C-alpha cells in the first residue's frame, strides 16, 4: 500500500482531471436536458479543436493565443453545425437514436484525425500555463497553472451554469424544454433557438476541455476522443440532472483514478486497472440509486 505522504502527491492531478471531467460533464448534462441528445462526440470534437490548434502553432505563423482560440472556435462551430442540422431532424426520435447519431460524428472525426495526424508521432501542445508551477505546502507536490485552471473552470462553470439556468430567461426556457419539449413549444418558446444556444454552449465547453486535456492527458487522438466516457460516467451518476452532483462525481472519479496510480507490488492490479474507475463508480452509483425502484409486473387477464 502506498504511504499517505506518497498518495498526497496525486491529489492535485486527480482534482485537475476531475475539474475537466466536471466541465465536460456539465456540458453533456445541459445539452441533454435541453435537447435530449447525449453527445458522445464531445471528446472527439474537443480533440479536433486541439489538433487544429497544434497545426496552427506548428505549421503556420499564427500567434499561439490565436491557435488556442481556434481550438475553442472550431469545437464550437462543429458542435453547433451538428446541432443545427441534425438536431431538428432527430428531434422526434428516441434518445438512443440521437446518441447514436453523435457516435457517428465521433467516428467520422476519429477517422479524419487519424488520417490527417495519425502518422505524426509525438505531438504535444504545451500551454504556457503548464510551464508555470508552484510547490504546494504539506507535501502535496507541485501544481501548474493548467491544473489550477482545470480545477477552477470545473467549479466555476458548474456554478455559473446553475445560476444561468435558474436566473435567466434562456435558462428557464432550457429547463422547460428539458421537462417537456412539446408543451414548451406551444407556450411560444423559440425551441430551435434555445436548442441552438445549448449546442453552442456545449461546443464552447468542448473546446475548452479539449485544450486543457491536451495538456493534462496528452495530445493523443484516442485518449482525447474517449475521455468522454469519464465525463459521461459523472453525468450518469448525476442521472443527467444535477450539475452539482456531476461536479462532485467528476471530482471523485478524477481523484480515485489518480490515487490508485501509486499502488504497486501485491496491489499492482489496482493501478493497472485504474482506468476502469469511471465505469465501476457509475455502475455502483446507478445500482445504489435504483435500489428502491419498484418493479411492477402486470398480467393480462385471459
Amino acid at each position: 500500500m502506498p504511504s499517505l505522504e506518497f498518495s498526497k502527491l496525486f491529489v492535485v492531478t486527480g482534482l485537475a482531471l476531475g475539474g475537466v471531467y466536471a466541465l465536460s460533464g456539465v456540458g453533456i448534462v445541459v445539452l441533454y436536458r435541453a435537447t435530449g441528445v447525449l453527445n458522445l462526440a464531445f471528446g472527439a470534437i474537443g480533440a479536433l479543436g486541439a489538433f487544429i490548434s497544434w497545426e496552427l502553432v506548428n505549421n503556420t505563423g499564427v500567434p499561439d493565443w490565436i491557435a488556442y482560440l481556434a481550438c475553442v472556435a472550431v469545437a464550437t462551430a462543429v458542435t453547433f453545425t451538428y446541432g443545427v442540422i441534425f438536431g431538428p431532424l432527430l428531434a422526434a426520435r428516441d434518445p438512443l437514436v440521437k446518441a447514436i447519431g453523435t457516435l457517428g460524428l465521433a467516428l467520422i472525426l476519429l477517422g479524419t484525425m487519424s488520417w490527417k495526424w495519425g502518422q505524426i508521432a509525438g505531438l504535444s501542445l504545451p500551454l504556457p500555463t503548464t510551464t508555470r508551477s508552484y510547490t504546494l505546502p504539506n507535501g502535496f507536490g507541485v501544481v501548474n497553472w493548467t491544473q489550477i485552471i482545470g480545477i477552477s473552470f470545473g467549479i466555476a462553470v458548474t456554478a455559473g451554469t446553475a445560476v444561468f439556468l435558474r436566473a435567466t430567461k434562456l435558462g428557464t426556457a432550457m429547463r422547460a424544454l428539458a421537462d417537456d419539449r412539446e408543451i414548451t413549444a406551444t407556450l411560444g418558446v423559440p425551441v430551435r433557438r434555445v436548442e441552438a444556444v445549448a449546442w453552442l454552449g456545449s461546443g464552447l465547453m468542448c473546446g475548452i476541455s479539449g485544450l486543457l486535456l491536451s495538456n493534462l492527458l496528452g495530445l493523443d487522438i484516442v485518449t482525447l476522443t474517449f475521455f468522454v466516457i469519464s465525463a459521461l460516467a459523472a453525468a450518469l451518476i448525476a442521472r443527467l440532472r444535477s450539475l452539482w452532483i456531476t461536479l462532485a462525481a467528476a471530482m471523485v472519479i478524477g481523484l480515485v483514478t489518480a490515487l490508485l496510480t501509486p499502488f504497486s507490488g501485491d496491489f499492482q492490479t489496482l493501478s493497472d486497472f485504474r482506468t476502469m474507475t469511471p465505469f465501476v463508480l457509475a455502475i455502483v452509483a446507478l445500482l445504489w440509486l435504483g435500489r428502491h425502484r419498484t418493479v411492477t409486473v402486470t398480467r393480462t387477464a385471459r
Partner: protein
Amino acid sequence: MRSHKRSAALALATCSIVGVLLDALASGAASAPAPVGTGKASKTKSVCGLGNGKRATGRPIVLGGIFTKSPGIDFSPIGLMADAYFKCVNANGGINGRPIRYIIETEQDQPDRVAALPVKLADRDKVVAIVGNTSNTDCIVNQRFYERRGFRVIGAGVAAPCFTTPNFAMVNMGPHYSNTGAAQALVRAGAKSIVDYASNVPGANPYYGSGAITVGKRAGLPTSDNYVDVPIQDANSLVLKMVQQAGNGGGIDIALIPPEGLKVLTAAGAAGVIDRVKWSGATPFNSQFIADALGPEWNNKFLVNAEFNLLDSKGPDNQLYLQLQKAYQANCPACLGSFGQMGFLVGKIVTYTLLAMPVNRITQKSVNAAFLRIKNFKSDLWCKPWYYGNLPSHNANRWDRTVTFVNKKIVQVEGCFEIAAVDAPIVRAKADEKRLKLTSGTSWPPVPGQ
C-alpha cells in the same frame, strides 16, 4: 419550412468553411522527389543500388513486410523508410533492371491477423522474401510458418523469438538489449536504483525489462520492472509513481515508444521532478522529434541508448538516409530517427543481396538461401559489421552508443560499447562471431565503394 431551409443553408455554409479549413491544412500532394542515391559509390558516398539514375522497368521483385500499427505503438516508419530505399533503388536501375515492389502490411496485435499476413504475402502476393518486419507478435506467432516455408526474415525485432530462434536476423538489438544498454548507462552515471518502465504489450513482460534488471542486480542496486498499458492516459500521475519508486538519485529506464515516452518526459517537466532522478531510454528515443520536443530543462539529463549512429553524422550511409527521408518520407517525422535508420538498413542489406544474385534466378528459395551468406556487412550506422549466418539465433547488433539531448541536438555521450552479456544469446553471438569470422574478412554481399 423556410426556417429549415435557412438552417440548412447556414449549416452548409459552415460545413464548407470547415471543409476548406481542413483542406487548406491538409498536407500537400507529394511532389516528385529530388533525384537521390545516384552516382558512383565511394568510401564517402553511398548510392541506392546501381546508382545509375535510370528507372527500372522490368519484372518486379516482390517483397513484403509486417508492422504493428495500433494506438500507442506504431512501427510503420521502419517499413516506410525501407520502402523509401527501395523506391530510390528503382529510380537507379533497380535490381539489374528489375524494380522492387514492397508490400507493407500492418496489424494491431490480433494473433489471427498476424498469422494470416505471411500466408497472404507468401501465397497470394508471391513475395520472394519477407523483410523489415517489426511487430510485437510476428516472431512469436509466425516463427513456425517461416521455418516451414523457408523464409529468413530480416527486420527490426521486438519480441524474444526475434533474437533467440534461427529464422530471424534483426538489424537492431530490440527492447530487451537496448534497455540493457540504457541501464548500463544509468549505472555508469551513478544511479542508485534501476526502475524500468515498458509498454504492456504481448510478449513484453518480463522480456523487455529483464536485461536492465539483471544489470541493476549485478551492480547491487534495488530494481523494479514495470509494464504500463498504452496509450498512457494519465502521464502526470504515472511520472510521480516512477519517481517515487526510483527514489532520489535513482534511475528510471523508459522502454516506451517515443510518443508515449514523450508524455512521461513532458509530465516530468511539468511536475518539476526531472532533477530528482536519472533518466534513460531505449533506442527509439534516438529521434529528432524527441530532441525537438524537449526543452532546455532536459539538457544532458536523458541518456538514450543509441543502436545506430547520430543523425548528424557525416558517414555516407547516414547522409544517404537523411536524403531519402527528405525526398520520400518528408511527412513522416518518426522516420527521422532510429526507426528510420532501421528501415534504411533493411533496404540496404536486401538490395545488395539481390544485386549479388543472378537476376533471372531470384526466387524465394534462392533469396532466402542468399541471406544466410551475409557476413561482415558494413554500414556507418552500426558500430560493428552485421551478418546473418546459419545460426540458431542472431544478435549481430550488440554494440551501441549513449546519446543525450542538448538544445534540441542529439549529442554523443559514450562511444560504441558492448552490451552486457546478460543472457545466453549474447554469449553465443560473441562465440559465433569469433568462430566463423562473421565480422571480418571478405564481405558478402559486396557493396561498391567499400
